[in-house]
């Protein structure tokens, strides 16, 4: 309970900074819309095929624009030795890591929502047919991206080649999560019936989130404390 309370205060701090500066929100939002625009030149944006592959398009956009957000998660703490101050504070390493993931999660979700609206308009796709299921998948997959992003953002924060290393490490690790999110989102947006197959993928997302969050909590001290 104490860890959760501390994590919430870290997430609140990050969110307050983000709302004041809007650095990551603006960059990730603009980047997501630019990719959606570019994708419209790759294939016919009004063909029925778009609905069938909308999950793939959306989650690639979210994963790439998410990189801009989790890149900033820990690197914004570097000036003025803020990271050292956070580590010296009574916060536990696990709560710091989970709080950072919470900050990334809350920043990435609005970017995803805006991209979803823009996607609906640009590609004439009715994405709102299964709102609770779609919301659940977005929450599960976004938390997975956020926790892995926070862990590896922390792991690479002091590296010379941080911007190069982060995507190289993160995207292969996110593959099971992205496959699951793409599969279920495709079905929901194409308005196909939800079968056991989709539930299986939803369980993969849940397992990924639980396992990665547990590992992050256990290894937080190793990752954060120099």
């Amino acid at each position, binding site marked *: 309970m104490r860890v959760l309370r501390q994590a919430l205060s870290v997430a609140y701090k990050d969110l307050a900074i983000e709302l004041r500066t809007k650095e990551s929100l603006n960059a990730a939002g603009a980047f997501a819309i630019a990719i959606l625009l570019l994708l419209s030149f790759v294939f016919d944006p009004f063909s029925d095929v778009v609905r069938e592959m909308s999950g793939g398009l959306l989650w690639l956009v979210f994963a790439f624009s998410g990189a801009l957000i989790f890149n900033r998660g820990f690197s914004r703490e570097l000036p003025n030795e803020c990271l050292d101050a956070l580590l010296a504070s009574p916060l536990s390493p696990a709560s710091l890591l989970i709080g950072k993931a919470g900050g990334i999660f809350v920043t990435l979700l609005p970017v995803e929502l805006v991209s979803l609206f823009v996607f609906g308009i640009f590609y004439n796709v009715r994405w709102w047919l299964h709102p609770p299921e779609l919301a659940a998948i977005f929450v599960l997959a976004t938390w997975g991206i956020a926790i892995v992003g926070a862990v590896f953002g922390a792991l690479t924060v*002091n590296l010379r080649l941080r911007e190069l290393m982060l995507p190289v490490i993160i995207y*292969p690790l996110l593959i*099971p999560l992205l496959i699951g999110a793409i599969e279920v989102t495709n079905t929901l947006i194409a308005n196909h019936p939800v079968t056991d197959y989709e539930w299986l993928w939803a369980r993969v997302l849940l397992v990924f989130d639980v396992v990665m969050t547990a590992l992050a909590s256990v290894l937080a001290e190793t990752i954060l404390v120099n």
Partner: protein
Amino acid sequence: MRERLSIVLAAIAALLLANNLHAMFLTLPDEAMQGAIYRILFFHAPAAMVGMIGYFVALTLSIMYLSFGDFKYDSLAASVIEVSLVFSLVNIVTGSIWARIIWGIWWTWDYRLTSALVCVLIFSGYIMLRRAIDEPTQRARLSSALCIFGCVDVVIVWKSIEWFRNQHPGPVLDFRTGGGRMDPAMSHVFYMNFLALLLVATALVLIRTRQESTAREIDSLRRVAHAA
């Protein structure tokens, strides 16, 4: 001692490989459906098995480094991952050659192929991460953490892609099927070749560990010289 052991292991592996090659090309007949190309299986599957064993040995070594803080576990883990990566690449390349002849394509997005590729990508990231960190303690700690995340992710990838797509031939080895799917003469050569590749991998790990320890010693001497 370690040098002598690696030479002995390499010599045994060379003898075994020579014997296996003789059996593969001069004793065993062609496979009824696939013809001569089936012989690639004697290198393709054992390379995958050696690679996978290596990743999980590295996982154990990484946990041991984090628990005891001894650099020898870190050096061993890094060496094991480098050697396993080579065996994974052998697995992918030999699989592609087999697929081109049997399926008519170099690659398909089957779960085993995709998992093997994800493994290679994750552990290539591990090697790049090690190269990007100069400070030995930080390098050992962070690469151990990445190894643990990577191995857990490989298990999730393996299981999830298994549900997703499957075109790869099913298991044929006795310990997976309970017997009867592979001719005993063929499975004998298969297991002997697995043993030979395992010995090659062990010899390579020993050589690479010695290089890693020497590199760490040189690095610490350089630091002392800079400080003086």
